[in-house]
């Protein structure tokens, strides 16, 4: 059993105005409350299949996504509820999808691991570890070479494709091939590695001969940055810097976010592979309470304000659950829908 000592809790000044700081805090709270409720609903049998919670890692997705624009493309993993929500998807559509209801973002066809949203250029939810990486390379390739005037992929030199993946994905051949292609072809891909120290039950030192993931990027001649994934300030500022580097170098950038998963890998995990003490220590670095404390210390947040934000998040969650509960089931007669594109409808 390896012991991953946690560094000291995030601290220090928050270089943002109150408004922006609270927006990010709010998003972290929304994710946390939504997922706590999802876990509850899983227990209640309303949500089935696999459910992978992001609890503990919220600063990573929130801080990174707030450094991107609505025009950018997002590719995520099966641990993507938070990314989907921050990206702008309706919480009701997410919850309904997890319920398997027709009102879900994918009409209940995808479930928790396959959230998609064309409106926010959210390309999913992928249950194959590393599966999203080549996809992101291709999306960036299209942004770079697609001719003017094409509808969906309308050329956009500014468009970045951000691809989120975990430390476990780094060992896959898909990682190697994708990073090389992106660097070789100078594509605007932001590789966002959420290193939570474990791939399921396998600690990174049992998965990687070289655990300094930034060194991997060097073997593709790709610039790499690292950020404390529990510190939303570090995450956001580092990601903004990465975006600048990406634009200047007109090529891909690799960012490693060092974070930690507070909950089990999925709902079926006895967590034999890590010590309770390790988890508890990391919890002292929790992204929400540490950021809250810093904001309060700076007078950017009062307890009442915090309670109001939290209540608002709870209310949004309650509404999302009500929406999902009230949702309908797709008729079985429609089973074969959306396998092939109906003739005539342009993709």
């Amino acid at each position, binding site marked *: *059993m390896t012991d991953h000592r946690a560094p000291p809790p995030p601290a220090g000044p928050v270089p943002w105005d109150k408004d922006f700081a609270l927006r990010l805090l709010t998003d972290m709270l929304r994710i946390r409350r939504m997922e706590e409720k999802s876990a509850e609903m899983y227990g209640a049998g309303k949500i089935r299949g696999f459910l992978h919670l992001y609890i503990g890692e919220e600063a990573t997705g929130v801080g990174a996504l707030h450094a991107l624009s609505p025009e950018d493309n997002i590719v995520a993993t099966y641990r993507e509820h938070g990314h989907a929500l921050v990206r702008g998807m309706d919480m009701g559509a997410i919850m309904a999808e997890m319920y398997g209801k027709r009102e879900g973002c994918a009409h209940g066809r995808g479930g928790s691991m396959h959230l998609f949203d064309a409106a926010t250029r959210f390309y999913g939810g992928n249950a194959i570890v590393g599966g999203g990486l080549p996809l992101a390379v291709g999306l960036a390739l299209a942004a770079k070479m697609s001719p003017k005037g094409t509808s969906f992929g309308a050329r956009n030199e500014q468009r970045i494709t951000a691809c989120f993946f975990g430390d476990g994905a780094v060992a896959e051949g898909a990682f190697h091939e994708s990073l090389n292609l992106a660097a070789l072809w100078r594509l605007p891909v932001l590789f966002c590695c959420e290193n939570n120290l474990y*791939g399921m039950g*396998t600690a990174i030192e049992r998965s990687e001969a070289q655990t300094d993931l930034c060194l991997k990027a060097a073997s593709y001649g790709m610039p790499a940055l690292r950020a404390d994934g529990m510190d939303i300030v570090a995450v956001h500022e580092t990601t903004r810097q990465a975006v600048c580097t990406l634009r200047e170098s007109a090529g891909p950038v690799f960012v490693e976010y060092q974070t930690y998963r507070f909950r089990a890998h999925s709902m079926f995990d006895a967590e034999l592979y890590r010590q309770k003490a390790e988890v508890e220590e990391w919890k002292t670095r929790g992204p929400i309470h540490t950021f809250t404390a810093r904001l309060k210390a700076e007078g950017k947040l009062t307890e009442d304000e915090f309670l109001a934000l939290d209540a608002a998040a709870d209310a949004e969650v309650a509404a999302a659950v009500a929406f999902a509960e009230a949702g309908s089931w797709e008729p079985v007669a429609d089973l074969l829908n959306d*396998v092939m594109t109906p003739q005539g409808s342009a993709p």
Partner: protein
Amino acid sequence: MSRKISYRAAMREAMHEALANDPRVFLMGEDVGRYGGTYAFSKGFLDEFGPERIRDTPLSELGFVGAGIGAALGGMRPIVEVMTVNFSLLALDQIVNTAAALRHMSGGQFSVPLVIRMTTGAGRQLAAQHSHSLEGWYAHIPGIKVLAPATIEDARGMLAPALDDPDPVVIFEHAGLFNLEGELPDDWSADISSARVRRAGKDVVIITHGGSLPKALAAAQALAEQGVEAEVLDLRVLRPLDGASIMASVARCRRAVVVDEGWKSGSLAAEVVARIMENAFYELDAPVVRVCSEEVPIPYAKHLEEAALPQADKIVAAVKGLFA
């Protein structure tokens, strides 16, 4: 004197026995060690056999399956666990282009005594990327054997002969069977060459394998209550197929339904039907029909997933159709 045991426990016992009795055997795969096995098949093995023989791998399906092939060539008897068939797509090159072809390409100089185990099938609302049933694909490849233990005896008995086999053996374990409980007879030894009649009948034979076996047995039970005596044939070995047993059942029953969780087009069921066409055409009183999965990526929603997969009621309806 038999004893009650689960499919999971039976498979676990079989692996434990192999590890304890043959120092060349080792278990390698994602989360087989510290995690205790994705489906708890190897819980406790790490402490007993150590990290060398209960080897957690990185997420590198192509790499560690290929490493298993090399280790087999080097004299070991690896049990490589690919977490699920869905991820085995990443390793197919090594299985098809190396494991299956090596003996032939080397003119018989090198055999690959490798066992690859993987979970297969749908039914747990895991959606399109985690619900494949691709046994039929594997059964198409010369140079490998393909097994589908569907009972507690076979979960207990098929691993040993697979490990004794000098060639690559791929074992498909359907997730829907893991919690199956049943009586394990004292003699659970199993061959890896023949199909087996799981229920005798005379009016129709339901030919199936793996996770569909319980559904076929349930259908046969329901049919019996309606006066139709259905035989249930468990293929057990998907490559090479036991054609003789298939034809014997068909000759006996003169009607057949093939049940397979794979998508209908290009399913293993198609091969079974083709063999019957070629070898028992004149024995048939009615055309053989298939009950397979609908041609759709498996949906997440429970009611849609159930509608996409073979079910006992669909089998019953198919059988009745043969008498209409």
